């Protein structure tokens, strides 16, 4: 079957596939060469030369894969499955970048890419550590490269190549045509939720963090392997801080993306995918602390090794969870399963076995400390802090791994139904203890401290925090909850103690600034997260609709969504909210929602802003994908998203035959009126002013005996007044009426009869049903003090950065 297909560009794919195979081969060669150099197979450095050459080739191959794939996506070569599945012609360039890593293959590439870059840095900086450390890094590179191979070895498909052709990936009759490509109009496009600026930089940052996690692991392995048990910690410290900083920034960016682009109304949901990246971050933070303890006191050696090793294994476990398809129904946003379950499993198993094997082999010669730590010593509490963090991880890990337990034991346990409450009730305690320890440990010295001085300083900080807690509790309105108050107290204590250190740092001890700043940031982050999560308030509470009594509403129906009709203001909390219409830009429909604060006494508008929550309407799929819009204040956010809107296609129904005007309106309400009457209808008042007995009707000449009467009506709706004159005509033996419509109100008024007996006139009022008016159903949430969370995260990241500089400087001095 040699069909010649028209229009296919096969070169970029072939080139890309060549680079994939090259990257695998060179990674393998580099691993072996570095291995032989590490065990001093030859002493002339020839293995190292080969290894470096292989590494350089590997680096180029990785760049080559990325360039080929980018060329394919950028030029919309839909003959390739990856381009077809993840991009479309209408995507702007910056989203083409995000579509690059929407799929598993692209994100694996991102990981290899960062690992290559970091490898390059190690090549120049690691000096005597280069060979053993790079052996481990390149072994990981071998595994990652294998994920992209997409070739069959002994009947087993290894990896998934991004360069597979559409016609190879799928089976459809269209592919039997040589000109099939001309029939494929466009790609599937990027998931609209990922079309957000944060999605351009969040994945690269996160994967840089994942890639950096291998370096502490590799140093720990190298230390055990080369029996340089103690040296590695000093060298690995700045790298560990780097990994912690980048991964932390990546996680926070993801959280910010969720807050800005998803409509679950929050910044953290304890989703398995979120947890999976949080766990290794926490264990590596614990590792950093015990590494410091060891460096300064010789204690906690094994804990340092263990945590540095387990952190990377947990990174691999995280990618296993999100990529193997094992989460199944437990998570909404894991990757689609590419059938790489065992390959991913092998990756974890290999690194786990290397770690366990080496510890086993070296156990007897490890430098365990013989004596116990002093209670009044910094190293002891650094160790305890690390233990608490590990326990916190254990709890997250246990619940997140429920699908894994199900798979192992064949059980069918479901995750907790109240998942957030389940995690929170544990994590709040861990957070309280961690914060307290991170506060008072600042006043302890390594080896041994003087208790009296320690207590004096701690007591002072405790006193200040107690006062600050009372104030915060009152201002934020959380004083009724003991747990919240304790966490606030603990976090404020940490902030205040570390501010004290920061003050010392500014006075001259500059090297203390990094850790103090990181801890201040952490404390603020805790307070911000807790206050925003605990006191956020849905302000769009629906007060209309069927009532079931307050108790029922509270238990069962939170009524968190409210319907807004166009131009009809509704009061929500302190805001007067009006939906002012929509506009379309590209695939998005923006709903303009106006918020006003009106002073009760003066009636003046003191504040006004518009929010534009949007929804991607996909008429074909009959779905909307809504993204919120948020008004940011310094101390609170007003977050708004639409939860239901009329579908566009439904609104435009064409006029067809037999379709009368009346069909648009509901059943008329008939009133018998006389001048001076007023009638209250849905959103207007109609006043009957007078009767005009000399009404003239256009184009109809009146003859003798004909009667033409008009009703002079005044319609008041809001601040507007409309004057209309529906008329009634008797011509010959027939009667006619000439109704008037007020389009803006969706109202039609007909003068339908004269009732001489009652001395009344008959007025029929037609109103369009409300649905015909434009509406949106929306939800608005107020998040108080959420900026503390973001600010804390930024301060913490800066703190990490300063610490990296400090620890790096220490390396040079020694």
């Amino acid at each position, binding site marked *: 079957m040699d069909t010649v297909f028209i229009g296919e560009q096969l070169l970029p794919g072939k080139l890309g596939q060549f680079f994939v195979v090259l990257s695998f081969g060179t990674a393998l060669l580099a691993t072996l060469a570095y291995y032989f150099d590490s065990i001093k197979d030859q002493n002339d450095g020839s293995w190292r030369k080969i290894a470096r050459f292989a590494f350089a080739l590997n680096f180029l191959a990785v760049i080559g894969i990325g360039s080929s794939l980018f060329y394919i996506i950028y030029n919309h070569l839909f003959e390739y499955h990856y381009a*077809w*599945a993840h991009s479309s012609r209408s995507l702007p360039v910056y989203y083409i970048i995000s579509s690059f890593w929407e799929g598993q293959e692209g994100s694996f590439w991102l990981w290899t890419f960062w690992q290559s870059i970091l490898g390059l840095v190690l090549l120049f900086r690691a000096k005597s550590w280069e060979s053993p450390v790079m052996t481990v890094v390149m072994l990981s590179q071998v595994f990652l490269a294998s994920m992209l191979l997409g070739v069959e070895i002994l009947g087993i498909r290894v990896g998934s190549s991004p360069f597979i052709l*559409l016609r190879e990936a*799928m089976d*459809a009759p*269209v592919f039997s045509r040589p*000109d099939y490509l*001309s*029939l*494929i*109009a*466009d790609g*599937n*496009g990027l*998931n609209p939720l990922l079309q957000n600026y944060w999605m351009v930089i969040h994945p690269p940052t996160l994967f840089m963090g994942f890639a950096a996690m291998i370096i502490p692991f590799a140093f720990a392995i190298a230390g055990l392997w080369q029996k340089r048990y103690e040296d590695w910690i000093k060298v690995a410290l700045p790298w560990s801080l780097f990994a912690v900083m980048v991964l932390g920034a990546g996680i926070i960016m993801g959280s910010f993306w969720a807050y800005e682009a998803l409509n679950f109304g929050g910044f953290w949901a304890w989703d398995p995918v979120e947890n999976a990246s949080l766990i290794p971050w926490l264990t590596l933070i614990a590792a950093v602390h015990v590494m410091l303890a060891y460096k300064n006191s010789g204690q906690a050696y094994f804990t340092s090794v263990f945590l540095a090793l387990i952190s990377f294994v947990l990174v691999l476990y995280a990618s296993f969870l999100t990529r193997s398809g094992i989460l199944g*129904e437990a998570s909404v946003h894991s990757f*689609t399963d590419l059938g790489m379950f065992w390959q991913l499993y092998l990756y974890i198993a290999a690194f786990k076995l290397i770690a366990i094997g080496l510890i086993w082999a070296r156990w007897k010669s490890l430098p365990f400390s013989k004596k*116990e*730590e002093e*209670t009044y010593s910094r190293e*002891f509490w650094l160790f*305890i802090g690390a*233990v608490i963090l590990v*326990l916190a991880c*254990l*709890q997250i890990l*246990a*619940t997140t791994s*429920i699908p894994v337990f199900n798979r192992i034991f064949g059980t*069918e*346990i*479901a*995750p*907790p*139904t*109240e998942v957030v409450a*389940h995690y929170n009730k*544990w994590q709040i305690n861990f957070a309280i203890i961690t914060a307290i320890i991170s506060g008072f440990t600042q006043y302890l010295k390594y080896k041994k401290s003087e208790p009296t001085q320690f207590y004096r300083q701690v007591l002072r900080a405790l006193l200040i925090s107690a006062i600050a807690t009372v104030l915060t509790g009152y201002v934020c309105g959380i004083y009724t909850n003991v747990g919240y108050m304790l966490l606030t107290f603990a976090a404020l204590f940490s902030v205040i103690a570390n501010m004290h250190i920061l003050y010392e740092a500014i006075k001259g001890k500059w090297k203390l600034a990094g850790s103090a700043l990181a801890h201040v940031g952490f404390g603020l982050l805790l307070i911000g997260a807790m206050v925003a999560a605990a006191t956020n308030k849905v302000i769009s509470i*629906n007060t209309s*609709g*069927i009532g079931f009594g307050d108790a029922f509403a509270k238990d*069962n*129906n*939170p*009524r*968190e*969504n*409210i*319907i807004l009709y166009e131009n009809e203001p509704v009061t929500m909390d302190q805001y007067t909210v009006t939906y002012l219409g929509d506009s379309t830009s590209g695939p998005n429909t923006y709903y303009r929602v106006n918020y006003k604060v009106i002073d009760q006494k003066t009636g003046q508008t003191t504040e006004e802003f518009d929010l534009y929550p949007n929804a991607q309407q*996909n008429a074909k*799929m*009959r*779905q*909307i994908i809504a993204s919120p819009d948020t008004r940011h204040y310094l101390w609170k956010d007003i977050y708004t998203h639409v*939860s*239901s809107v009329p*579908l566009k296609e439904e609104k435009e129904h064409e006029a067809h035959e037999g379709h009368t005007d009346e069909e648009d309106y509901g059943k008329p309400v008939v009133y018998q009126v006389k001048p001076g009457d007023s009638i209250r209808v849905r959103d207007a008042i109609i006043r009957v002013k007078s009767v005009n007995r000399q009404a003239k009707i256009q184009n109809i000449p009146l003859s003798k005996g004909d009667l033409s009467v008009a009703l002079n009506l005044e319609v008041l709706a809001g601040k507007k007044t409309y004057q209309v004159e529906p008329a009634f005509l008797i011509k010959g033996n027939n009667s006619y009426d000439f109704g008037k419509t007020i389009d803006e109100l969706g109202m039609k008024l007909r003068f339908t009869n004269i009732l001489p007996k009652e001395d009344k006139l008959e007025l029929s009022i037609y109103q369009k049903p*409300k649905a015909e008016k434009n*509406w949106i*159903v929306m939800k608005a949430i107020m998040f108080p003090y959420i900026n503390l969370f973001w600010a804390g995260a930024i301060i913490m990241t800066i703190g990490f950065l300063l610490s990296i500089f400090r620890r790096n400087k220490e390396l040079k001095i020694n």
Partner: protein
Amino acid sequence: MKKSSIIGLIIIAVSIGVIISVYADSSTYGDFNDAKASETECYVSGNLDLQKSMVYNPQVDANYFSFYMKDKGGKVCKVVFFGTKPQDFEKSENIVLTGKMVGDEFHASKMLMKCPSKYNKDQVEVKATSAT
């Protein structure tokens, strides 16, 4: 007792607590009969019954959505969700509900839908062209 032993004991105690908590808070996947029997929050999965009516009337109540679902055992039950109706709801192939039975109605607090997503469908959309 040495400090390390105390720490060890605390670690073991918390670990046991974690395991018990996972077990205690974990839920079950079941059907409507299980939900009725247990009277607690649980997961029920099934398919949308398109034969029966689906009610979402934002003009009347923007937070009331009801439909009928057929569980894995084939039992059809009315489901009430106090929120808005997801727009592509009719297309969902499989629904996982979190909630509990209240009388003969299942009150859902959360819904997770598996849709034949645009993003992993295995169909190629072909441009409409005249036959060549």
